[in-house]
């Protein structure tokens, strides 16, 4: 297993230019889509895997304009991998979560299970899509397309430990001006492979403060799933066993003469 890598997104450097979104579309040959606002994309689609959302607020007579690049967070403990019915989603060596499109049947389980609500299903093709971390680029020693293109260097790609160190240092430098600055994704869900430096609390950006794998998925996949397989095998096995045992019994069981008997022995 290769060293776990990570992408650092620094919200304090981002200018919402949208180049990451364009680069993503270009590298992954995703067509452009019409948007209804000057902001550009405001939500994911099967063909939009990353975009920058912004939020304005006027507090203490000061204007604030906060940006956040959105894409798959590539969770260390990914709910989508757990829930995928066909085993199409997996984590690659570098720690990025990828969908094997050959195995995907577009049932949308990942859409409903993602703590960040990222994947989107192309309903006509019945395939689920999201950011895959540009595995083809990374395998050839390049950075992800969005990182490569980022002008203000708000995106950095590198070894996860170094990235986390870098994030901590940067937040320390930001704290005097932004007292709520924090590192997001360092530990939650076994560490997110996209680490964010946020200038405000996660809620402000529409992020869950403590993202988790929903408990019903754990109950379903870790408890009920093996139990269900056992139940099916048990039903088959018990009828088979019953049949074999009855075969060995005396065909003319004495109780057979009683009225109302539904005895399991063969009457011939």
């Amino acid at each position, binding site marked *: 297993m290769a060293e776990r890598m990570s992408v650092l997104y620094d919200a304090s450097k981002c200018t919402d230019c949208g180049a990451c979104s364009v680069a993503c579309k270009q590298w992954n040959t995703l067509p452009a889509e019409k948007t209804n606002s000057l902001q550009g994309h405001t939500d994911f689609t099967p063909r939009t895997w990353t975009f920058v959302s912004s939020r304005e607020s006027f507090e203490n007579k000061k204007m604030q304009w906060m940006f956040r690049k959105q894409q798959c967070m590539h969770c260390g403990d990914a709910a989508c991998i757990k*829930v995928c*019915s*066909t*085993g199409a989603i997996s984590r690659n060596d570098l720690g990025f979560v990828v969908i094997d499109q050959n*195995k995907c*049947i*577009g*049932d*949308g*389980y990942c*859409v*409903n*299970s993602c703590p960040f*609500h990222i994947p989107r299903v192309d309903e006509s093709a*019945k395939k689920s899509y999201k950011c895959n971390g540009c595995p083809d680029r990374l395998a050839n020693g390049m950075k992800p397309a969005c990182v490569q293109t980022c002008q203000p260097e708000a995106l950095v790609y590198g070894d996860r430990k170094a990235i986390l160190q870098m994030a901590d240092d940067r937040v320390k430098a930001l704290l005097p001006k932004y007292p709520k600055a924090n590192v997001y994704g360092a530990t939650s869900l076994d560490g997110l492979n996209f680490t964010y430096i946020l200038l405000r609390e996660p809620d402000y950006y529409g992020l869950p403060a403590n993202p988790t794998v*929903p408990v*019903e*998925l754990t*109950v*379903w996949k870790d408890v*009920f*799933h093996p139990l*269900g*397989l056992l*139940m*099916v095998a*048990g*039903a*088959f096995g*018990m*009828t088979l066993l*019953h*049949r074999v045992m*009855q075969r060995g*019994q005396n065909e003319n*069981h004495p*109780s057979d003469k*009683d*009225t*109302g*008997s*539904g*005895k*399991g*022995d*063969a*009457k*011939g």
Partner: protein
Amino acid sequence: MKGYILKHETPTRIFHWINLVVFLLLLCSGLAVYSPKLQFLALIFGGLKNAAAAHRYLGYAYIVVPLIYIVLNFGLFKKFLNTITHYSADDVKWLKVGGGYLQPFLKGEVPPQDKYNAGQKMLGLMVIFFSCLLAVTGLLMIYYQNVPPALVRWSYLLHSFSGIFLGCGVIVHGYLAAVNPSSSKELKTMLGSGYIEEDFAKHHNSKWYQQVITKK
């Protein structure tokens, strides 16, 4: 027919088999998606993606077919519902001795039974309850884009549990009604003319048999 009495009317028999085929296809396609270990079941449908698509369409059939039967044969359905919702002391006793099917582990006299024995009555209730649950959760899963994600996630759990529980029930029902020698005459009745040997009815469903005889 001499020596035979009518147990299942023609609409009931047709409905029973259509519903069973639809259910088994749903079970196979459902299990194929349930676990990668059971993906071979998708070969019936020509691949996992087709199995998933078939599962959706068959799901609608599983909702519509019983509704058609109930609307066209409301009298029969009411009678059936009446039978499976009434339990007597004999039914409790039947359950205690496992219907006599679990000898030599559970011994004892098998008490006289109605048209359906206590096990069949319970299966009937289970089928109705879990089928409704499967229909509701299935629809939530198909139209997930208009439903809160948490509700859909609970549907995954309930849907797979109901399906597997019902599947196990149907496996045991099929075994007792079609394979087990002492009770497999039921298959011929359901698959054939609907008539069952008087002697068999006298043994297995004596209460119902007495009712039919006195009416004659």
